[in-house]
């Protein structure tokens, strides 16, 4: 089991706030917004999701905006859905380069027998998921059963096969930053226990989006610091995905500043950094188009999905 690293909340918050004071203007804003767009996991995780909803989301993922911009806008990184809709998404995204991510392991609570959770993963992979967004067993983590949590992560990684794995810590339920740090360290080590990790093959992710608070800057900073130390020890680049609560282009730029100043430019790529978000896309588009045309579009100028 890893040593628990102390984390000081006050200074983490101070440092996290400092990233929001960077002033991102003109060219760097344009570049940053395009980068943010390319990093989005466009997500729909609702009980009322239907194949048609997912198909329109996939269309939006490939072509975020129908207008013409020079250079053309990038597609988003992935579409994130429940396992039952993976096939629909896979079909709709075929040949586009946009990946299919599926939540699994009894998302969002994870409160199912391990066999059910693993089967969830197997089915999602079989249906064509390129990436599996798993949830850790928070109950076990909070009661101190770290080996159980680690063992389950290892088994999920095996069940995921060649699909990339994003490990959701659900930081809103872990509550303290020290827990966030400990869970990050544990997740990376557990994933590595089943075999070598290629850069970007494993992500750690803040939240399901179903628990408040979801992603915050301080939580993400602590996770980035864990990734940095893991990279320095092993040479392996683990990815990072804050999810939930990032709704505006400005917030997205703050996160990119944080990634840049904590991990360096290497991580400024959809290969190693993602935003789990839905409404973020339209705000990024709105800002990008404003930068090009000088006018803000109305909210109804952009498709819902």
């Amino acid at each position, binding site marked *: 089991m890893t040593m628990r690293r102390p984390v000081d909340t006050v200074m983490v918050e101070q440092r996290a706030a400092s990233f929001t004071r960077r002033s*991102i203007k003109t060219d760097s804003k344009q570049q940053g917004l395009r980068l943010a767009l390319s990093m989005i996991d466009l997500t729909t995780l609702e009980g009322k999701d239907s194949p048609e909803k997912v198909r329109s989301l996939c269309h939006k993922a490939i072509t975020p905006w129908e207008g013409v911009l020079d250079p053309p806008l990038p597609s988003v990184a992935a579409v994130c859905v429940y396992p039952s809709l993976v096939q629909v998404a896979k079909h709709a995204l075929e040949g586009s380069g946009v990946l299919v991510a599926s939540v699994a392991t009894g998302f969002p609570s994870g409160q199912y027998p391990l066999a059910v959770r693993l089967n969830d993963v197997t089915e999602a992979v079989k249906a064509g998921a390129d990436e599996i967004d798993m949830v850790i067993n928070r109950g076990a983590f909070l009661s101190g059963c770290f080996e159980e949590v680690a063992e389950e992560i290892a088994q999920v990684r095996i069940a995921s096969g060649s699909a990339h794995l994003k490990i959701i810590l659900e930081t809103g339920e872990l509550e303290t930053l020290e827990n966030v740090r400990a869970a990050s360290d544990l997740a990376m080590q557990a994933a590595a226990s089943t075999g070598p990790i290629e850069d970007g093959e494993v992500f750690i992710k803040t939240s399901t989006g179903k628990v408040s608070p979801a992603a915050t800057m301080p939580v993400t900073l602590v996770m980035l610091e864990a990734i940095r130390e893991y*990279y320095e020890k092993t040479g392996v680049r683990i990815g990072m995905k804050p999810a939930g609560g990032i709704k505006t282009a400005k917030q997205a730029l703050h996160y990119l500043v944080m990634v840049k100043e904590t991990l360096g430019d*290497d991580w*400024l790529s959809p290969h190693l950094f993602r935003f789990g978000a839905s409404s973020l896309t339209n705000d990024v588009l709105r800002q990008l188009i404003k930068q090009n045309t000088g006018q803000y579009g109305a909210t109804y100028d952009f498709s819902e999905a």
Partner: protein
Amino acid sequence: MTITTQPETVGGWDYSPAPDNTKITIEQKNKLFIGGKFVSPKSRSWFATINPATEEKLADIACAGRADIDAAVRSAKSAQPKWSRLSGTERAKYLYRIARRIQERAREFAILETMDGGKPIKESRDVDIPLVAQHFFYYAGWADKLAYAFPGSEPSPVGVCAQIIPWNFPLLMAAWKIAPALACGNTSVLKPAETTSLTALRLAEVFQEVGLPDGVANIVTGAGDTGRFLAEHKLVNKVAFTGSTEVGKLLMRETAGTGKKLTLELGGKSANIIFADAAIDQAVEGIISGIYFNQGHVCCAGSRLFVEESILEEVIHKLTQRLGSLRVGDPLDKNTDLGAINSLSQLETVERYITSGIQEGAQLHRANEQRLPSKGYWCNPCFFTDVQPSHTIAREEIFGPVLSVMTFRTPEEAIARANNSPYGLAAGVWTDKGSKIFEVAKQLDAGIIWCNTYNKFDAASPFGGFKESGFGREGGMQGLRPYVRLGGV
């Protein structure tokens, strides 16, 4: 960070220049503020103030001679009885108005502070000016409650206060001096440092705007001689000085036997102590804000870093990484972390210390070698390892972005090394163990001790040092004490 391979998807993402372009006007001839009016110096002498980031002249400043000082002190003297007879509530009204007006003109003050002094706009905007307003608000609150600050005695004003301030936080130091003096019913003659007079003079405009009675606060500009004339003046009842220990000692000799009250806030060589059980990533943030804040032009800068031996390598590694992310350059750019060194002479001083560090055998780490503008006074932030306690860079105040890193093995050793200094201004303690914080902090010989943080300022918190760092406190209830006489009725 030390990443060697190239990313496959994108190149670097850098921040475009983001200068604060707000235009402000600066008078070409800046006169003295005496008796509520801007007056030409009787000395007929002027000097130039420049922007240290560009070496361009900003304006001419009046150099007050003996006759000007005499006029200023006399104006303060004649205004004092009436000012002190005002009720505390009335005096508070003026102070509140000053605070609000500073908030309204905050942007202008921040830009001017940055242009004249070289500090990054991020700091003047987010730290200096908000604290200035806070200080006036805070002491406005005390003006009608002085009897409660000193229960059992009758606080009365001291009289005319000669206040001499340094160039590192020009307007903030003016606020630290003027606000408590006025709240207690004194009048003031303030002399800003010669390289940074502009914001103090603009504060004088604020005094006019709020209708502060003539002579209650006077601003006289000039260099060392002006300060000396002021401190020596017979009608001065109190001298408050912030600056070098050398000048502080001089003032102590000068004022001895004159009946003048004196407070001194002098230099420092503050220890920042990091234990192995600290949250290291956050402690590194504390090292950074401890020594590189305001280019290290901070009297309480954590310029001696003591790291527990077992984590030295890790701390140096993380410090190197973090130092690399600091942006040095145009102080008016909102993304600048370190601005210009305040003056050529200070730059020479800092460089002399860096040379002495190398010559005495310490190892220099220049983790941040950004290209610096060709004009202006610049110093890349750096630190030394292999520093011995006897090295000059470990003993003397550098007042620049230069850190000396040393180690310790036990808490006792850390305390002994930290206290082994002629100074005693501030200290930082970093550990995750609450009990250790209290154990160590109570044994440190420093006026201000920050635990798991550094360089935090608040108007309600007293600031001041021990030993050669001076005496007297500024800020908080304690900050009232130097500005009152206590008596019984």
